[in-house]
């Protein structure tokens, strides 16, 4: 038992997060300072969680999609569509419930569309979701009629900037979503089914799984996550920017999932580790900002981390890693 706890602590994601935080602390000794102001927590580390929440939420949905051997490039655009819909509706005076339901419903619809293209028409996921990645911004612009729609509705703004029990709303939403998604995946057989179709869709169908329905459901879930992230992003800036909301965030989300150890080849996945991946990425961003380095470094450092992660996940590294870890796992199993 002790051995397996130790082994799980040695996961590269934990090591990476520890390293990034350590470097941040060395560069900026006040990094871990937390203060309470107006009944809520402030500080760099809180900022990491707060800023990282949208990508973390995207990563939750993206994890499921990537586990099926797919990818969803449209999540950034779906964020923009959901944000645009929410801003426009709230400006038109609709109550918050309608606004939220509409924004989330649109995200769900976008996901269903992607799922239809992938599962029923058998398009390659990268192409299928590229369609909505491009068209989504157009749809968002149509909704906002080309303007940046700003709003002042306090309830909607609260979604992006409010706090409960001292914690920022985005963090709470991301946390609840992560826990809920993880429970649904692991307490039911859904997670296993997703992994099975990701590893071998044909064999899964032979075994009686509804692979088409599952695929559609997974993309729909990803769209839903994207619309939640879109709501937060819009509420944060108190407006919907069809051109820039969620721009390039699909790549951050994919990166977070890959950093979290889910292979782009599908199969085994872990939602909590993907969320951790999102936090690692945000910790790097924040660290570079607060340490006074020019933000241009950000992209270079990110690229460096991608390379490192890919090397660690490469077949050669896996073989070496598998050799050592299977030894220790065998021993651990015998003991338990």
């Amino acid at each position, binding site marked *: 038992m002790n051995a397996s706890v130790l082994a799980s602590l040695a996961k590269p994601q934990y090591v990476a997060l520890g390293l990034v935080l350590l470097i941040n602390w060395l560069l900026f000794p006040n990094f871990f300072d937390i203060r309470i102001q107006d009944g809520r927590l402030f500080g760099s580390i809180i900022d990491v969680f707060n800023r990282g929440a949208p990508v973390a939420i995207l990563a939750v949905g993206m994890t499921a999609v990537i586990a099926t051997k797919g990818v969803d490039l449209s999540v950034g655009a779906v964020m923009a569509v959901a944000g645009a819909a929410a801003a426009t509706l709230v400006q038109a005076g609709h109550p918050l419930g309608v606004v939220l339901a509409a924004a989330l419903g649109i995200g769900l619809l976008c996901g269903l569309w992607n799922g239809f293209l992938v599962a029923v028409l058998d398009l390659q996921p990268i192409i299928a979701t590229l369609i909505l990645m491009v068209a989504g911004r157009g749809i968002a612009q149509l909704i906002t009629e080309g303007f940046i729609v700003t709003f002042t509705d306090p309830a909607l703004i609260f979604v992006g900037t409010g706090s409960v029990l001292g914690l920022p709303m985005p963090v709470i939403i991301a946390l609840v979503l992560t826990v809920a998604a993880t429970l649904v995946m692991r307490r039911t*057989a859904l997670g296993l089914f997703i992994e099975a179709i990701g590893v*071998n869709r044909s*064999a899964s169908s*032979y075994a009686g799984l509804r692979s088409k329905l599952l695929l559609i459901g997974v993309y729909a879930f990803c769209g839903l996550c994207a619309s939640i992230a879109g709501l937060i992003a819009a509420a944060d800036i108190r407006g919907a920017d069809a051109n820039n909301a969620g721009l390039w965030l699909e790549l951050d989300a994919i990166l977070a999932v890959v950093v979290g150890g889910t292979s782009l080849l599908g199969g*085994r996945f872990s939602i909590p580790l993907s969320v951790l991946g999102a936090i690692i990425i945000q910790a790097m961003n924040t660290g570079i900002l607060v340490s006074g380095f020019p933000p241009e470094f950000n992209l270079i450092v990110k690229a460096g981390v991608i390379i490192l992660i890919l090397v660690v996940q490469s077949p050669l590294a896996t073989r070496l890693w598998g050799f050592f870890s299977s030894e220790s796992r065998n021993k651990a199993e015998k003991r338990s």
Partner: protein
Amino acid sequence: MHQTLPVLSAEAISKSFLAHRVLDDVGIALMPGEVHALLGENGAGKSTLIKILTGAYKPDAGIIRIEGVEVTPHDTKHAQQLGIGTVYQEVNLLPNMTVAENLFIGRQPLRFGFVDRRRMERAAREMLARYDLAIDVSAELGAYSVAVQQIVAIARAVDISGKVLILDEPTASLDRHEVQILFEVIRGLRARGMAIVFITHFLDQVFDLADRVTVLRNGRLVGSKPLAGLGRMELVTMMLGKALEHESSMRIATDRPAGDVLASFKGYGLRRKVGEFDLDIHKGEVVGVAGLLGSGRTEMARLMFGIDRADQGQALVDGKPVNIGQARDAVALGFGFCPEDRKTDGIVGDLTVRENIMLALQARRGWAKPLSLREQRALADKFVKALDIRAASIEMPVKLLSGGNQQKVILARWLATEPRFLILDEPTRGIDVGAHAEIIRMINRLCEEGLALCVISSELDEIVAYSSRVVVLRDRQMVGQLRGAEITPARIMETIAAEPEGIPS
């Protein structure tokens, strides 16, 4: 025999991959104006021989002669220049280019450095006219049927090479009418003095078209004979190579009383895949399915399990009509299917042995009613013990197991669903001898427990050993059923080889 020199002859060809000898002292001689059928089951060495003749592989030993002159084809292009052209089963042309472009790709007629499209299309029309094919050569090739694409591929190969044409299973995806059109083309080429190698799994087509047949088995030459005077039985025996004196003594499935009818398929079929068949499956019986490769055995199994949807006929289970449109429907009816291709359709490689075993059961229960980890482990442990699955742990990825153990895991997956009807497609292929015997014992045991089984196998001995009834397929048609004392390797082979009755050739 002939005084004429063979167009192409290969003598004493040997080829090994690593330590595995795939061709051992094999020879073939092609006469001008001859259709030469090259036969053999999977792994007999046909494709290796073809690849050596076309320069794709280098032989370890042996001589290739073209019109008496020794040659060594370096690659396929060189072989084409020497006069050897090949058309593969999967037409390797470019469906998104026009017919004319396909015919002249890489050697388009030029005018001022540009492709002279008009001249190219005129030449293409002339070339195809020789095959009585009048089609729009400026249309995309992909718009035409596979048969037309085959003829275009043949026209191209003949135009480039001109002496020897190798056709690798050209009829595999053609219907009966299209086959006749293709055969006319081949006969025309024969009349023009070409030597044609024809690889197929359809015996009727061999007798319909070929002049001479060469049979390979396990990398060795069984024989090369003129077809005139050769009996079907003799040919099947050459291919399968089973001694005919096997008798019913080796049967372990004798006197097994058949139970009630569990499922029956009436006039079931799918165009271009399996001709309509009638089949009743009784409780507690093993229906063996025999036939040569490509005779429609796997297609029949896929149809019964709903992987493919039948376009004619009706299926009844417990006397009630049922719709089996997808695997899920079949699973719900209590069917199970161990597919022939374990890797692509069977195992879920990265998942553990435990997960692979519980997958079908969990799929039937639905995602919302998960088996607890304890139930899963109990299930996996039970089957690992019952089927003697050799795995270091039930938590290891199933892809690390040997072929025989993987097969047992898939069997366990279905047994966990407590099925009523189990279809096994080549359950013993590619697994070692020990596991082989175990699987056969298991088939018998399951049957005694009242399960209905349908087992497809190329191993006649095996089929004879466990079948209560044997269904024989030939050329995608069910051509016979054998029962009781009729079930011997000899009778099965006779049925496979029997003259087709009433089919115009």
